[in-house]
């Protein structure tokens, strides 16, 4: 399946399962989709790429019948259709596997798969026998290790996704659309998913695959269509292109993801942690970060990286160990304590933990220091706007104005608001957990550059990331975590992909852990 399938026009012309022609959708003030046209062939995996805000979601909503296009046509098979509702889209054979799963976790797999269409017996009773049989048949096609009676809440995220896919297979699917399907999957689970996709492919189903992850795109897709600013920028044959070309098409310029080489002088030790433990989450962790230095924490999910950050920020009570900020031991029992010691955290879950989406950009940015921004008993709005303006300019935050609700910004700009929020507090230590999760390629580079330039300005920075290129790119030193233990700290000269992977897999290395 890896790029061998014929791309458009390579063999006898086949009728596309789905064709979009000149789709236009405007919202007040925005041309969200501006003449998007491409087609999906039977048995093809067609990647749809674009930065956040490029129009992918809007396009999917048009396909799903949630939005009506202003112009253009959707053609399924040979006939144009007008999508009026998600139900109708499904009946037409267009099926979505959403990024956020929409399953009833208290019900069984079978009930979820046939939700709304349960087979019935007389008097409206559910025909359980048929239900389980039909579901098991579909599950068999997917080769999963659970059966129709399993409670969905007991399944892993990956298996829950399989239930979504099973649901898609209950209809005669012509095109299946996967929206960031691997966002929460482990490598092993990804392999299973890709097998299922290959299987669908062999049955002649057309697949639209939306993802930011280049690796996957190049592994499983046949063609790549790119959107930028609502406009269709072209379709490339995966076999004949490369990451650079795709990226350039997406962001309109070249991207430098090479190892960071900028070096500047480091200052004194800003934060030092000695023997820090928190129950069974992590044990005996010691490290220090100097002013101007970026320490990257790398490890598998569950290795204890985020938990260390949460402990430093007062969200968890350490069971042992000491924390020193600028040479003085500090006691931290709450985020307010941490903030007063100059420790700040840009959390992993930007929307859930970092921002109040319904509040304005300005109000989000000044939230931690609102108590200090007073003119008499009132909030000094002038001072607030001054702070917002300063960090909007410094961080190049793209927003129409401070009144804009944060929820309306793109992921990259939202992340900059969170970073600006903490920079405006003039912290000593900036902890950034998964700085670019869910952020598109172009903005990723911007965030990376920002982290480097903040280090150059003398902040002590801790970056936690699950992406190895990111850790390698931004860190001066890298701490490898495995199962709650800090295995080894590498300098940027020592580190290689191989020894880093060894360390985070718990494999013995010739050097003892050094802080």
């Amino acid at each position: 399946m890896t790029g061998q399938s014929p791309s458009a026009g390579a063999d006898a012309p086949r009728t596309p399962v789905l064709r979009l022609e000149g789709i236009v959708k405007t919202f007040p003030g925005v041309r969200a989709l501006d003449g998007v046209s491409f087609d999906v062939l039977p048995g093809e995996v067609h990647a749809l790429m674009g930065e956040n805000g490029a129009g992918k979601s809007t396009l999917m909503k048009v396909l799903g019948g949630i939005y009506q296009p202003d112009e253009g046509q959707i053609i399924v098979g040979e006939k144009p259709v007008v999508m009026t509702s998600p139900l109708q889209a499904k009946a037409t054979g267009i099926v979505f596997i959403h990024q956020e799963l929409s399953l009833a976790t208290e019900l069984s797999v079978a009930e979820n798969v046939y939700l709304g269409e349960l087979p019935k017996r007389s008097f409206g009773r559910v025909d359980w026998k048929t239900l389980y049989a039909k579901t098991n048949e579909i599950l068999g096609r997917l080769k999963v290790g659970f059966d129709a009676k399993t409670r969905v809440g007991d399944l892993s995220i990956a298996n829950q996704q399989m239930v979504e896919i099973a649901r898609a297979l209950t209809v005669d699917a012509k095109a299946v659309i996967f929206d960031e399907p691997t966002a929460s999957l482990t490598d092993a689970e990804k392999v299973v998913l890709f097998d299922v996709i290959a299987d669908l492919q062999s049955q002649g189903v057309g697949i639209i695959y939306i993802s930011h992850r280049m690796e996957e795109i190049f592994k499983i897709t046949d063609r790549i269509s790119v959107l930028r600013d609502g406009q269709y920028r072209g379709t490339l044959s995966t076999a004949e292109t490369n990451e650079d070309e795709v990226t350039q098409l997406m962001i309109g310029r070249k991207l430098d993801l090479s190892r960071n080489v900028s070096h500047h002088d480091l200052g004194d030790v800003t934060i030092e942690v000695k023997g820090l433990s928190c129950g069974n989450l992590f044990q005996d962790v010691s490290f220090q970060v100097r002013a101007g230095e970026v320490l990257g924490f790398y490890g598998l999910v569950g290795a204890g990286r985020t938990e260390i950050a949460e402990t430093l920020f007062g969200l968890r009570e350490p069971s042992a160990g000491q924390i020193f900020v600028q040479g003085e031991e500090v006691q931290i029992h709450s985020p307010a304590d941490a903030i007063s010691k100059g420790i700040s955290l840009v959390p992993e879950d930007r929307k859930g933990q970092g921002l109040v989406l319904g509040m304005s950009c300005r109000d989000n940015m000044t939230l931690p220091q609102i108590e200090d921004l007073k003119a008499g008993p009132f909030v000094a709005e002038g001072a607030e706007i001054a702070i917002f303006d300063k960090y909007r300019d410094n961080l190049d935050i793209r927003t129409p104005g401070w009144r804009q609700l944060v929820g309306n910004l793109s992921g990259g700009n939202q992340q900059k608001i969170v970073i600006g929020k903490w920079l405006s507090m003039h912290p000593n230590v900036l902890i950034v957990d998964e700085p670019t999760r869910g952020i598109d390629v172009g903005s990723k580079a911007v965030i990376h550059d920002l982290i480097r330039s903040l280090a150059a300005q003398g902040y002590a920075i801790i970056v936690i990331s699950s992406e190895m290129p990111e850790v390698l790119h931004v860190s001066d030193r890298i701490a490898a975590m495995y199962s709650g233990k800090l295995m080894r700290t590498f300098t940027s000269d020592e580190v290689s992909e191989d020894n880093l992977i060894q360390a985070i897999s718990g494999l013995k290395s010739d050097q003892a852990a050094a802080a």
Partner: protein
Amino acid sequence: MPKITKASLGRFLAKQGILIAFILFMVGFTLANERFLAPENVMGVIRSSAILGVMALGVTFVVISGNLDLSVGSMMSFSTIVVLDLHDKLGPTLAIPAMFAMTLCLGAIIGFLVGYLKLNSLIVTLGMLSAIHGLTLTYSGGKNMDIADKEGTWFSVFGQGELLGVPVPILLFVGLAAFLGIVLSKTPFGRKIYAVGGNGVAATFSGIRRPRVVLGCYLVSAFCVATAGLLQASRSLGSQNTVGQGLELEVLAAVILGGASLLGGSGTIFKTVIGVLILGFIQNGLLLVGLQFYAQYVVTWVIIILAVWLDIAAKRGKLLSPIA
């Protein structure tokens, strides 16, 4: 002047839906009965809405912080009974602050349970509704409470007095609304309430001590309830144990009519005042057009549900939506 398009008009209507509905009601009732907009009728409506209104101000704080307060009705009965009882025992000068202190204690208990112990506010305040009702009955021994010397006390000034021709309850309502409106929109405390209601986790991650903010909101609510109890006691100088019964829902209705989201994070004092006035004028208008008193309940609630539906439909952009 920006161009008026169908879409921009739609957005404007969606934003101002409640205000427009209010104007339509006023026009409709005025056409039906010319006495509706007469100054004495308008003044009468505002005056009789004042007690409900004062309570709604406090509940607005609680709702914006993402919680509910269903205990305000029975708490208002408590305040009324207590201040009437203490009036004869301690004299009005001491009775009023004593009653405020006791009511604030009740608010503090709720605030502690919801804020610090993180219990569900619906359960806590529903429980407190009954508990406080029992407390009131125990306190009064089940009897109605009356002031002995109704002619000779200055206590009646809050409920019955006038200043420059404006009834004191209206002055208190407007004054408290202005004060709390400023607290909510202009102070750090107000900002924190919106943050806690909008996204409590993010507020915590910004160093905001969430329990304190929640406690603060319930104290504001209790203060408003105490003020309402004072108005009620001073107006009638005697009261049943159940004077505030059912008010919690009317108060909540006014807050929601004003457009505050039950999910927290949105709403303003000004909008709540509009909600209170709509409720007051609907009930008054229905009486003026000759609707039977009991039928009012039905019509009022039908209108409330309709209003909420239209409000949500305007936000969604269509009347029926497959997605909530």
